[in-house]
């Protein structure tokens, strides 16, 4: 296979009702996930939500308490880690410190009994793919973080794994290198056509790299969608807060007709929302609106919330206003900063309204959400 050409078609991965308990504690609950061949899915969630646990189950290091793991529709639960064909890139890379770069990359090939000649050819090919041919004889400790990571990837991809798992692959890198490596990993994943799951708790990383994002919280997957959809149409309050920033406004349902609802906010204004849940009239709910989906108006109007500007933060391309409604509710509004246009001053009276009919989304408060998982609070 020449470097850069897609490998044989990737393999699909299916998780069926995976649950894992550590004693009494449910670390992963009833997870269903379908990943297509060649897809890159990001597992995004706060610390302790069960991301690593899920990866360990896929790789075979942990036997799940219930559920099935299938590669290409075949259950693999009976296979030990060394026969599953799952490649893992660890957060600390886990390169073998006593072997050179070339020996590290060759390790998996030797373990599979690949003939010597073929091993050498494949190692050269992989090192070329990750632009590391010149450093083949170095030891891992003589490499920078980014270089170590390339080798970790090359070592994995050399044995053509069915599934590639990356557990916080960029956690140990500084910001600039991070961006370079994100592009690099994406390129290699595309080039090899390998199906991949990447764990991260960095939402930007997930948004920029993944074909789909699975947002996890307390051991359950709250939403699996393409990045734009996770951002624009979060299916739960947690997702809307964890991915990007949002304003959460408490209110009471005034009318509800299934997909749409009108909510009366604390200061008495009414706001029209997309309803993610069927809410009863009179029920206490939360409305989530992203700062950039709110518009500032100079005059009162239909559904506009009167507010006073408190803080003005000009952040390069956008300006963020922190305002307060008459009921004392703080809100963030972000607006594109047009050259020459004057910014509002703190103390200015403004009227805030959703920029589009689907800007505001209605959620039930988390505490009353049925079926929430995790018997212990995550850190």
């Amino acid at each position, binding site marked *: 296979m020449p470097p850069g050409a897609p490998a044989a078609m990737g393999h699909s991965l299916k998780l069926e009702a995976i649950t894992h308990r550590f004693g009494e504690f449910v670390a992963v609950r009833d997870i269903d996930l379908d990943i297509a061949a060649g897809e890159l899915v990001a597992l995004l969630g706060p610390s302790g939500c069960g991301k690593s646990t899920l990866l360990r189950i896929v*790789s075979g*290091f942990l036997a799940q308490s219930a559920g099935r793991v299938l590669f290409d529709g075949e259950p693999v639960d009976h296979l*030990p*880690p*060394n*026969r*599953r*064909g*799952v*490649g*893992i890139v*660890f957060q*600390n890379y*886990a390169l*073998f*410190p*006593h072997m050179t770069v070339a020996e590290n990359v060759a*390790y*998996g090939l030797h*373990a*599979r009994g690949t003939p010597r000649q073929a091993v050498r050819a494949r190692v050269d090919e992989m090192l070329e793919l990750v632009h590391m041919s010149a450093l083949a004889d170095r*030891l891992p*400790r003589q490499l920078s973080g980014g270089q170590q990571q390339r080798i970790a990837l090359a*070592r*994995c991809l050399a*044995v053509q*794994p069915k599934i590639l798992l990356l557990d916080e692959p960029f956690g140990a890198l500084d910001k600039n290198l991070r961006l370079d490596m994100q592009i690099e990993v994406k390129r290699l994943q595309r080039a090899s056509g390998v199906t991949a799951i990447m764990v991260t708790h960095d939402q930007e990383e997930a948004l920029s790299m993944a074909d789909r994002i699975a947002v996890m919280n307390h051991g359950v997957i709250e939403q699996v969608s393409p990045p734009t959809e996770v951002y624009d149409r979060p299916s739960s309050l947690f997702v809307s807060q964890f991915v990007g920033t949002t304003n959460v406004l408490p209110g009471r349902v005034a009318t509800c007709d299934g997909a749409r609802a009108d909510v009366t906010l604390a200061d008495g204004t009414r706001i029209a929302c997309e309803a993610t849940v069927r809410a009863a009239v009179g029920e206490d709910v939360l409305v989530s609106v992203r700062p950039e989906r709110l518009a500032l108006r100079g005059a009162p109007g239909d559904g506009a919330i009167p507010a006073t500007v408190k803080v003005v933060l000009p952040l390069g391309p956008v300006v963020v206003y922190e305002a307060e409604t008459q009921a004392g509710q703080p809100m963030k509004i972000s607006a594109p900063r047009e050259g020459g246009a004057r910014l509002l001053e703190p103390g200015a009276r403004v009227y805030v309204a959703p920029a589009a009919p689907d800007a505001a989304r209605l959620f039930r408060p988390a505490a009353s959400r049925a079926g929430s998982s995790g018997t212990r609070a995550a850190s």
Partner: protein
Amino acid sequence: MAARAAAGGREWRLALPLAAFFLAFFVAPLGVLVAWSFYDSAELRALTLAQYARFLGDRFTLGILWDTLTLGAKATLVCLVFGYPLAWLALRLPPRWQAALVFLVILPILTSVVVRTFAWIVMLGSQGVINQALAAIGLVDRPLRLLYTEVGVVMVLAQVQMPLMVLPIMATLARVDPNLSDASSSLGAGAWRTFWKVTVPLSLPGVVAGCILVYAACVTAFVTQTLIGGARLIYMPLYIYQQATGANNWPFAAAMSVVFMIAVLAVVYLLNLVGRAARGAYA
């Protein structure tokens, strides 16, 4: 600042008591020993190399030196063969069991040499526990000779010095990143391959340290060698002792001590080289 710098400059004085102790009770006696080895007789009249010539020209004494050095090698090997798996196992046990196992391993250090050596005599005798057990399960029909044999000495030395092997190996094994063996098996290596290609090379520094400690302890284990080995098996420490106090030939005893010391240091140095070579690859 100045005061602190001055104090810092005088900190070496803290080492003075230890240095004085060392000088008085280690360097000085060693100097006396080396000096005596050059005298021709117990009356200390003339300086000569006669004692060394006698040692190196005598097949009997050279035989004893060889027996002692190989005894240490055998006991060290047995310690390694049993100690490595023990250390490996201990690290995989739940913390409570691990503590219990470590305690069992260091127990020999906590008992008196004489007491535990006599306990072994009871174990190894022809009517001892080991022979009775072997006879009971039908493995032997005549009692094995264990007491007063080299096999017996090796067994006892290995048991007694086990902690010196197990503890350093445990320390290095505990430092090996557990992700490495996971990485190895995700790359398709079985448990055996992972063990030999990853775990063992990375624990070599501990193995070398353990071997050096055990070896040095075994070749000089006077009480164990003498009580378990009996009168027929003579090793360097006992032989030196006999020459010094029995034959009253202090210069010869001193020369033997010096040669023995150099031989042991040479072995330790070789082991160290192995360790350095292994460590050089990845430390």
